């Protein structure tokens, strides 16, 4: 059976990036990841051997912590509107690779925020959290086939939303 630290090594990077992709700041994502694993640590004797079950539990706890944070802070997690000027903006010149990655990440988060929540969840869990389809189906409470269809639709929509950004980076 894996230790909590071993689960952390695999799941923490996925969870951190998924939280950022879903609208949290990096600092907030780090806090949520740590709080999640404190809870997992406290439950360490009751954890199941199945890795997918632990992964599902980790993501569910993290979601709940974030929901509570949002309620407490009363702020919007996701930005629903992208300004027209900003949407068509291109990266500034003389940027370092880190700046470019930040710019790209911001554009992607904005595009994710424009997706319907069911498509956004399916796609970010698939691509950013690297969850298997079967686990996404359990997490979102729908069939595996519907998850596949949602991922496909999300991809198509993202390709439209990111047409300008992809030209700059691909």
């Amino acid at each position, binding site marked *: 059976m894996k230790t909590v*630290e071993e689960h*952390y090594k695999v799941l*923490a*990077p996925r*969870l*951190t*990036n*998924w939280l*950022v*992709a879903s609208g949290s700041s*990096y600092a907030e*994502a*780090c*806090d949520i*990841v*740590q*709080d999640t*694993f*404190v809870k997992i*640590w406290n439950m360490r004797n009751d954890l199941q051997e199945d890795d997918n079950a632990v992964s599902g539990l980790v993501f569910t706890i993290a979601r709940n912590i974030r929901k509570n944070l949002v309620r407490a802070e009363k702020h919007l997690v996701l930005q629903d509107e992208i300004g027209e000027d900003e949407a068509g903006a291109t990266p500034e010149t003389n940027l370092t690779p880190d700046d470019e*990655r930040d710019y*790209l*990440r911001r554009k*992607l988060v904005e595009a994710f925020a424009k997706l319907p929540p069911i498509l956004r969840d399916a796609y970010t869990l*698939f*691509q*950013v959290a*690297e969850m298997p*389809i079967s686990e996404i189906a359990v997490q979102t409470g729908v*069939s*595996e*086939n*519907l998850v*596949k*269809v949602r*991922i*496909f639709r999300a*991809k198509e929509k*993202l*390709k439209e939303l*990111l047409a300008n*950004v*992809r030209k700059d*980076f*691909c």
Partner: protein
Amino acid sequence: MNINFNNIRTNTTNAAQAVQTTAEAEKTSEATLNSYDLTISLAEAAIEDIKAAGLPEDALRRDDDLGKLVSAAFSLPPPPFPDV
């Protein structure tokens, strides 16, 4: 005053029968609706299967252009393991 008990009895019986018929009709309607719900659920599941079967082969690849872009952008390091 003449009271026609036969009429009263007949009307009461008719009313009771009407209530019973309505109750039975409601049950039948509910069963029919449940059967429709089941049919709709099965149809929806079948539609999902057809849609999933019709997806392009590369629809679920993580390493296509978009996937590479997303993976590159979301490669932030996690925080250290919490101090437990």
